[in-house]
């Protein structure tokens, strides 16, 4: 990518430095989600059977659909950067818009999923859930926290990409200075990677 160091549009740019800063932030996110994954791993080892049963409460099709959505979203934002760097601003805006749309689809899917679970009485501290064994309570609790926090990250990503769309349209992000879009892309890909791990943990336990 462009490790331009110098001046563009009157202000100093250091793309390599800015990218490294973003990666360092992502490292803190790795530890953040890593802690949650650690909790999941410990309780899965302790309550293996209950976790398997909990997995049957999940809709695998939803999980797979959401994975396809996010993987495609990673493609579109990667393309949007490549397009902009080749000077194709209009197409880049289209690709960024598609990414936002896919993010919104993901969130809409989570809404439908959570609604279904809550409709069945499976929400934290619900009478139905409290009537189940400890392992199942832990599984559902981890499900809500981990996918919920992830969904929050998707929401933030949607907001940030909407902002880069504005900046790209106003030519504050240009083919010579793409760092804001690059870093936004890094964040979005990271959110995708987290979901790649969440899928087998909650949706593919059989």
């Amino acid at each position, binding site marked *: *990518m*462009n*490790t*331009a*160091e*110098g*001046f563009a549009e009157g202000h100093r740019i250091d793309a*390599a430095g800015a*990218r*490294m800063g973003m*990666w*360092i932030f992502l*490292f803190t996110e*790795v*530890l953040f989600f*890593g802690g949650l*994954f*650690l909790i999941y*791993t*410990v309780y*899965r*080892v*302790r309550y293996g059977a209950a976790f*398997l049963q909990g997995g049957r409460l999940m809709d*695998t099709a939803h999980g*797979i659909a959401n*994975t*396809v959505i996010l*993987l*495609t979203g*990673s*493609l579109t934002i*990667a*393309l949007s950067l*490549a*397009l902009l*760097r*080749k000077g194709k601003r209009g197409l880049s805006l289209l690709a960024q818009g598609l990414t936002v749309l896919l993010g919104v689809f993901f969130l809409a899917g989570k809404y439908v999923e959570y609604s279904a679970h809550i409709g069945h009485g499976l929400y934290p501290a619900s009478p139905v859930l409290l009537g189940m064994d400890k392992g199942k309570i832990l599984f559902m609790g981890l499900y809500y926290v981990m996918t919920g926090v992830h969904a929050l990250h998707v929401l933030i990503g949607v907001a940030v990409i909407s902002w880069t769309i504005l900046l790209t349209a106003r030519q504050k992000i240009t083919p010579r200075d793409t760092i804001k879009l*690059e870093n936004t*892309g*890094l964040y979005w*890909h*990271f959110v*995708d*990677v987290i979901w*790649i*791990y969440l*899928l*087998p*943990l909650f949706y*593919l*336990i*059989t």
Partner: protein
Amino acid sequence: MAQQEIALPNISYRTYVLVWIILLALLAFTVAVAELHLTGLLLLTSIFIATLKAGFVAIYFMHLREEPWVLKGMLFFVLFMLAVLILLTFSDEWYREG
């Protein structure tokens, strides 16, 4: 500082699409493996395939391939520390009574 613009090679659209197809194929593979009901090995196999997918996203979409070794080293260190965190926790979990 010297004003220099080092333009690293552009990744072609085709490469991005190809990686996306590989990711979708790995997803299909993950689902197929889950259907095999391997139970014990399932978690490890799923995590392994997930790591492959994450690797593709990191190397090609996140442009890790073009980044300097310092950054690649930092990432490996962070992942190593996470692995240590998990392993140390289990060194307690597996051998504690009760």
